[in-house]
């Protein structure tokens, strides 16, 4: 087991390092690509091995890291069902994305940097997932943050790309303050930073402290998982290459916040305030993301907002205490969202790096190999009954319903409305991009579509299969016990089960909502109405749609509230306080002494006799004073 766990992390790490050091000059391009993909699949194989030999949660210590007196944070890995299932998903999805990226990046000269960073990202992500203590988790947490920063700004020549990377890094790091404070506080309270120990010691502390800790961790999760109010970085993060968006900003890294909350749930879940805060954050974010996605024109931005929204669902699930349902949705979302992003990458490549969906159309016939998987992803997202997305989303909503009460009841309805909007925008996207005719002025209409590398479309298929049939992983209770459910449920976990009838009813409601959303989209964008709507929406956005288009204008608000004051104050502090006050005071003091010296010098006329008299007078004064004292 130790070997497996070591391999899981070390393979991607080694791949990244080898590529970084030797790539470009010493390794041919093919070898770099091969190495990058091979290490991820190797890691997947190791995960499979670990899964095969898995019997009970294991803790493996690989070496020491931080150790000073009573504070110890060694390199310790912890494998339990939660981390194992996430590891499987990450290595598998990332492996596919790596293969896809080989095709996507085939003309880019900086492929070495790209693949090295992708590999390092996977290594950091796996450290995050497998970490047994919080500082180690923090190492992975920041490591993925750095890789994300470097990859968003991958095409660094454009200032907006570089700025997007910087924004992502800084905003997520704001959330990390919460995690950092939580770690040191927990160390002070419990004398340990081991996750397993902390989770079993929660009862030692009063509920108020637990609440505070939970809220701090929620802050961290908000930053990393792009939850309201720290969600502003994710839409901009789409500036990176599409495989990066698929891997980091859809499938893996952004779910780290949710993972953290799931991990620490036994500790923080006992506080109702915390779970309520998590739930309301999730619901709000889900609603926010869905509404924004409704009006976007940029294909990748639609997907980004949809990611925000879907992670909101997961948070909602965690808030409702439904860890299993959340995990299920996390996995399912990783499959179909990666699928959608990769499909979007195919579309964008075929359209010569055009991302505006209003300039697309008719791609159904041009690139059928992309269309069908993309459609599969979209129906999963829309929650069409019997797809994986339907079951996983429904699991969360069901759990919220189960909690009952006015608060969670409201959240349930917010979730339902969001599901409706989700269906609308998912189908809108498909209809606009793939239906209709190719725009006349576009090169595709002249039959000059760029041929897609085969490898890109092939890698979509496994994801599509998993997305659509992912529901089989965790079937609802009335169809027999779910695989995932029994795997994840820990002894002592008290996740409630809905009565079968209620569950069926809720699923019926969800199905109706999804179908309603799809039909709404069809009636707006389907068939001939597509052209009219497009003409209508192409006009510059006004009113509510402009508000949604700009993500509720949160960016502008933050710019006004935080960014500008920060910049402004920093130059004020520098030029007025530091240079103007502190330094100038000292300079002036020094100048004063200098002037005093000159003044004294000017008083004396340089005559030796006067100096002598002055000296004698001084001596007389001193001796006289001494005599006076001695008397």
């Amino acid at each position: 087991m130790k070997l497996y766990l070591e391999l899981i992390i070390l393979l991607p790490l080694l791949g990244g390092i080898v590529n970084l050091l030797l790539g470009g000059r010493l390794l041919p391009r093919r070898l770099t690509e091969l190495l990058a993909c091979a290490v991820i699949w190797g890691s997947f194989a190791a995960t499979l091995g670990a899964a095969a030999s898995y019997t009970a949660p294991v803790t493996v210590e690989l070496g020491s890291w931080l150790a000073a007196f009573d504070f110890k944070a060694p390199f310790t890995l912890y494998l339990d069902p939660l981390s194992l299932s996430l590891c499987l998903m990450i290595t598998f999805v990332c492996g596919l994305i790596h293969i896809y990226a080989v095709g996507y990046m085939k003309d880019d000269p900086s492929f070495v940097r790209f693949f090295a960073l992708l590999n390092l990202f996977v290594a950091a992500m796996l450290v995050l997932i497998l970490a047994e203590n919080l500082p180690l988790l923090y190492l992975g947490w920041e490591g993925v943050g750095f890789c994300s920063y470097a990859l968003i700004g991958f095409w660094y020549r454009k200032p907006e790309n570089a700025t997007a990377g910087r924004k992502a890094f800084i905003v997520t790091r704001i959330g990390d303050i919460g995690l950092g404070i939580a770690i040191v506080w927990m160390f002070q309270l419990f004398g340990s930073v081991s996750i397993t120990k902390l989770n079993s010691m929660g009862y030692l502390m009063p509920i108020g402290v637990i609440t505070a800790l939970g809220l701090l961790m929620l802050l961290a999760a908000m930053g990393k998982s792009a939850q309201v109010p720290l969600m502003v970085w994710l839409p901009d993060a789409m500036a990176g290459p599409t495989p990066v968006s698929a891997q980091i900003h859809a499938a893996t890294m952004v779910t780290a916040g949710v993972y953290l909350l799931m991990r620490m749930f036994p500790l923080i879940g006992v506080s109702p305030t915390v779970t309520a805060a998590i739930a309301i954050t999730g619901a709000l974010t889900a609603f926010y993301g869905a509404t924004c996605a409704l009006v976007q024109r940029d294909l990748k931005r639609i997907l980004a907002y949809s990611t925000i929204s879907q992670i909101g669902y997961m948070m909602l699930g965690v808030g409702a205490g439904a860890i299993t349902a959340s995990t299920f949705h996390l996995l399912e979302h990783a499959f179909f969202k990666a699928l959608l992003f990769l499909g979007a990458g195919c579309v964008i490549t075929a359209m010569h790096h055009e991302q505006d969906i209003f300039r697309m159309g008719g791609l159904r016939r041009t690139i059928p190999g992309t269309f069908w998987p993309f459609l599969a992803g979209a129906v999963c997202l829309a929650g069409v009954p019997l797809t994986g997305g339907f079951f996983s989303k429904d699991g969360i909503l069901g759990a919220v319903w189960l909690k009952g009460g006015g608060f969670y009841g409201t959240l349930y309805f917010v979730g339902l409305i969001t599901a409706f909007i989700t269906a609308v925008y998912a189908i809108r996207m498909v209809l606009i991009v793939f239906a209709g005719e190719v725009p006349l002025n576009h090169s595709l209409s002249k039959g000059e579509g760029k041929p897609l590398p085969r490898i890109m479309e092939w890698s979509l298929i496994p994801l599509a299969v998993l997305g659509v049939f992912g529901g089989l992983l965790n079937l609802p209770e009335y169809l027999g016990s779910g695989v995932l459910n029994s795997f994840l449920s820990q002894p002592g976990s008290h996740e409630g089960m809905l009565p079968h009838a209620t569950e069926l009813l809720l699923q019926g409601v969800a199905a109706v909502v999804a179908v309603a959303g799809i039909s709404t989209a069809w009636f707006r964008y389907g068939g001939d109405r597509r052209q009219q709507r497009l003409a209508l929406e192409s006009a510059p956005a006004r009113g509510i749609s402009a508000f949604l288009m700009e993500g509720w204008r949160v960016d502008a608000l933050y710019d006004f509230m935080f960014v500008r004051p920060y910049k402004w104050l920093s130059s004020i502090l520098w030029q007025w306080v530091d240079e103007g006050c502190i330094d100038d005071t000292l300079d002036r003091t020094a100048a004063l002494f200098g002037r005093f010296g000159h003044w004294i010098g000017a008083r004396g006329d340089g005559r030796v006799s006067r100096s002598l008299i002055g000296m004698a007078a001084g001596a007389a004064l001193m001796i006289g004073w001494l005599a006076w004292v001695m008397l």
Partner: protein
Amino acid sequence: MIPVPFLTLLLFLPLAGSLLLLAMTRRESLARITALTIALAETLLACSAWFCQGSTTPQAAPPGFFLFLDRPWIETLGIRYTLGMDGISLLLVILTAFVTTIALLVSWRSIKERVALHFLLILAMESGIIGVFLSLDLFLFYLFWELMLIPMFFLIGIWGHDRNIYSAVKFFLYTMIGSLLMLLAIIGIYLIHGQQSGVYSFGLSELIGTNFSTATGLWLYGAFLLAFAVKFPLVPLHTWLPDAHTDAPTAGSVILAGLLLKTGAYGLIRFGYPLFPEAARTLTPLLIGLAVAGILYASWIAFAQKDMKRLVAYSSVGHMGFVALGIGAWTPVALSGSLLQMINHGLTTTALFAMVGMLDEQAHTRQIEDYGGLWSKIPIYSAFFVLFAMASAGLPGLNNFVGEFLILTGSFKVAQLATVLAFIGVILPLVYTVRLIQEVLFQEERRPLSMTDLSLREILILTFLALADIVIGMHPAPLLEVLKVPVALLTGGAP
């Protein structure tokens, strides 16, 4: 077993080397090679001290010291030639030898006038700094404390640029005022101890445990604290640092940031707290307050800087604020974090200053707005730059994180509010660091500059530093192990 005069050799080898260089003022290449040889020999010597740790404690040595030397010097005044090395000194001495070697290598080509004098001053300074780290006699300590100032004054004054004289004088006045007050305080302790016990001595181990009245203790400790705070530098005594850094030659900046700033923290740990435990405890809120203020304030100001060296200089102020926070907390974890952070800051900031110096050497400007798009032109340089910038911003897995995290963990017990604020101070470095990276390395070039990538010598320097950064970041255990005994003795905890 190493013979007794090992410490003396360690202390005076660079000084002897600098005297040797006096004879070579006309032969530049010979001077370079001699200086480098001596610096390397010193590094070797310093590293060999590592292996003395396990050996038996020398006689009469205070606990924790594995190398000790005590000879009478000016007996009538109770001044002795007392040197000692414990874990703290060991790490700092190795750092000193290492950074000095790098400073020599960095100025290998960039210094073109009075080469021998330049190297001579660097070596002389090395002796001074090592002396500070080894002295266990207050008078001796003061002597070396002053000795290390003078070469730096000339380094800034002779080879500096822009307002070099202004900066050199400012540097000198600041540190001089602080150290003169310290001298008064040293004499004060000497007299008070002499009156109490009848034995007039400057020895540290003699003086520890002297009883002061509260007011006297506060005054004396205040004088010490002022001298050390100037060196640290703590806000608001920091304004000499940006000027000195900006106008100093690269080697000067490297030594200033890498080594001189550490002497303040070291003095506080070795002398300030043990001599005046009461007063130190009373003034702890002040120290912690200034530390946190410095972290936030300097990091904030760094964001507005236009000059790269100035930016790195302000970042130094911020990072040393963390060290001050750890010392203020005075718990075992925080103190080991502080000491480790001193080493880390020495390595990272050295690298950053060296790298800015390399740019300056080629393009003759340090303004951020003159650069841009360097990544496509000099990728190796850029990769190193990102690495060190990230280390400086406290990315886990690199060295600074380890120190900062230990400091924060250890301080939380003592000062919750300060630690929480300091956590905000953890992200501020990231803000200015990514801005620096973006404006210098990314985007399009803003002025056509012809740059060549790193030479082999430069790659060698940076690789050593980078390896040190990563190794400490991933496996700090050996260093923490070395610090364990002295830190436990200082804080009174069990080792």
